């Protein structure tokens, strides 16, 4: 039974995706790819905030009606998880803050304090009622699970592949990875972390055998206003983008953890903290991490 | 001899089923299962000791089994 590497590239959740696995037949590999694409599609249709026909859109609708909406098992755990992150980040990570992100994406000039204050008055997880089963929120509030679903999908697809018997390979959903296991000879996968300032050059190479790998960075999506770059990561407490436009500001953080979901959350929270606080947070977590500052200096190591 | 197959052993079959009806109430979170994973909670913690026990007791008593698939035979007397 010889294992061969099979690779499938596809597009889902608005980003380039890849599933690479070692299988002993092309047929088995095709079945795996179908499984992966189907699951990615299912989660996108369910939770995408870009689609007005997504399940999440109707769930939000029902949640703002009297009595609220009852969440299914999968959504319930995602909401519990989002709540943990909200508490963990002291309110900086908040899945109700879509209007804030939209505001900063659209402007040409810095929004006025009134504009920000107006939005802050209408959003916030503290305004949501969630008891583990029923979600109830004021009308007009929306849920943006974008920061969780892609990482969750990588873990979920990896879990399905593992259940189907695959042990060597990885799932890559736009830079959120879950590695099922190293190459059959035991050697790890090599992932290049992109250099923010030199588009096609790799900044560093990570060797990883199994587990989740996720990165948070703002070099690709920032807003430039009056010559200053504003991160697309908004701190839900202040309503402002995180302060990263200085030498010590972090432009990207990569984290590994047993699951991609946790790796992604930790990377995002580190980016929200910025600076020395981020470093302390990452070191304290016990996970392996790497960060790139605006100046180009690299800290941390993932082996 | 008076021997009837297990499915007619009503009282014991009922007890067996009742034991598992109770279990429908269990709700144990994945992160709460650490205790069950400890070796002292295992059904068979020491396979060699367990095999030796089976061997000794089967050789000296009339009853046998109940500990897993048959293994080994000897002319023990």
């Amino acid at each position, binding site marked *: 039974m010889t294992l061969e590497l099979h690779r499938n590239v596809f597009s889902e959740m608005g980003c380039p995706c890849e599933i690479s696995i070692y299988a002993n037949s092309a047929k088995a590999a095709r079945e795996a790819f179908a499984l992966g694409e189907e699951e990615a599609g299912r989660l996108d249709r369910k939770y995408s905030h870009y689609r007005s026909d997504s399940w999440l859109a109707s769930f939000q609708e029902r949640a703002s009606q009297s009595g609220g909406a009852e969440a299914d098992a999968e959504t319930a755990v995602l909401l519990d998880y989002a709540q943990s992150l909200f508490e963990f980040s002291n309110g900086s990570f908040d899945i109700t803050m879509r209007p804030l992100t939209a505001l900063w994406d659209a402007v040409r000039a810095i929004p006025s304090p009134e504009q920000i204050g107006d939005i802050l008055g209408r959003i916030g997880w503290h305004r949501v009622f969630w008891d583990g089963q029923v979600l109830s929120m004021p009308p007009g509030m929306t849920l943006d699970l974008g920061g969780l679903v892609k990482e969750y999908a990588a873990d*979920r697809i990896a879990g399905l592949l593992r259940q189907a018997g695959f042990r060597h390979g990885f799932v890559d959903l736009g830079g959120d990875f879950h590695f099922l296991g190293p190459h059959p000879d035991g050697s790890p996968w090599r992932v290049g972390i992109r250099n923010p300032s030199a588009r096609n050059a790799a900044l560093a190479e990570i060797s990883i055998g199994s587990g989740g790998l996720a990165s948070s960075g703002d070099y690709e999506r920032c807003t430039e206003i009056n010559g200053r770059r504003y991160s697309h990561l908004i701190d839900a407490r202040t309503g402002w983008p995180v302060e990263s436009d200085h030498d010590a500001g972090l432009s990207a953080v990569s984290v590994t953890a047993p699951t991609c979901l946790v790796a992604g959350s930790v990377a995002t929270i580190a980016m929200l903290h910025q600076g020395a606080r981020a470093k302390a947070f990452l070191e304290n977590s016990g996970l392996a991490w790497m960060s790139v500052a605006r100046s180009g200096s690299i800290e941390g190591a993932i082996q | 001899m008076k*021997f009837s197959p297990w499915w007619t052993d009503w009282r014991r079959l009922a007890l067996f089923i009742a034991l598992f009806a109770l279990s429908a109430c269990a709700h144990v979170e994945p992160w709460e299962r650490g205790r069950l994973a400890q070796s002292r909670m295992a059904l068979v913690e020491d396979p060699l000791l367990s095999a030796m026990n089976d061997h000794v007791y089967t050789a000296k008593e009339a009853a046998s089994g109940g500990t897993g698939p048959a293994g080994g*035979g000897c002319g023990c007397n």
Partner: protein
Amino acid sequence: MAPGQRAEAAAATDSKMERYSKAIRSLLATSLGLPGMQDLLAKELPEEGADYRYTFYDEDPIPQNRLAFGDPRRYEIESHQFRVVKNIDDSYGLELNFQHETMSGSSPWYAVPGPDGPLQVMSGATIRERRNQADAGVRFLRGDWSHHAAVGYSSENDYVARYGSYSVELESADGLRVTSWGVSYSNDEVTPTDAREFGRVESADRDALSGSLSVTQVLSRNTVLQGGVSLTRQSGFLSDPYKLVWIGGAVIAENRPDERRMLTWTARLRHFVEGPEAALSMDYRYFRDDWDVAAHTLDISWKQPIGETWEVIPSVRYHAQSAPDFYAPYFLSQPGGIHWSSDYRLGTFGALSYRLHARLKGEKWSLSMGAEYYDSDESLALATPHFDSPGLVSFWRLSAALRFLY
């Protein structure tokens, strides 16, 4: 692996988890509730390692007042067991077992009437015998299914046994229940020593086919319960070729039925006791067969850790059985039926054994020592014994074991 053990075994024993901050572990724990997440942390095959166990078994001699004639010194056995478990990759595991035993001593032959009850006649010669046994098994995992197949062979100068088994386990979606089905077959051949001189059968066969079903259920975070049932059919030459029966003054070979159907019900409980952080273990077995033997066996042990490195395990076992109609220590006149045996192991009796084991644990090894005293007596039976059984045995068993993980 039992329910709950898959995901948490990895999480609990993965040393990396200990380095993660409490907050991270809590996030991981929450995310584990998502469907399919547990599979990602599952390390499913049993731990790899090598084990060795030495056992010294010594039966008490027949008391003088119960001995008719013959050598009262009973069996003394030394046994060496070896076991190796190796995992090929995440889905396949191999197990190899080897056992070497040396036995000597005289054994009960038959009983005769005496002034105060039956007296035991022992075989004169002390036999020194060697037995070797080897078996190999393979375990295969796929998703929620786990398969196990094994074959084995045991050989001594008058007995050869060949056996094989196959079982499959299915873990439920919530990981709280494992259902297991198994089947096994064995085929043995006995070629008694000194057959012609003693008029024993020269060679005879027996075989056995057995099926079992068990369900293991997590009842709470501290408790696991397993219930099982098994049916076995033995056929062929089931008598002991060395055993005789005294019938009205004549001594002839015993004659058991050539078929035996056996049923066992078992229940096993493992319960974690929070205060002392100990595990309470209870195993119960009910046995019945078509020879009319019925037996209850209860084995209770308490596994108490002391500090990080020691564990002390006291345990007690009680066994009670009732005899078939064709058993008696001797028969004054021809028995009614066509079967007869005076093998004390078929008698009505109860047995109590007390054990104490201690284990010393290192990171990759452990050392264990144990002692047991077993005593059987008619007065310990649950059913009313009709006869005294002078051959009932009591013994000491001492053992030491070493385990290496790699």
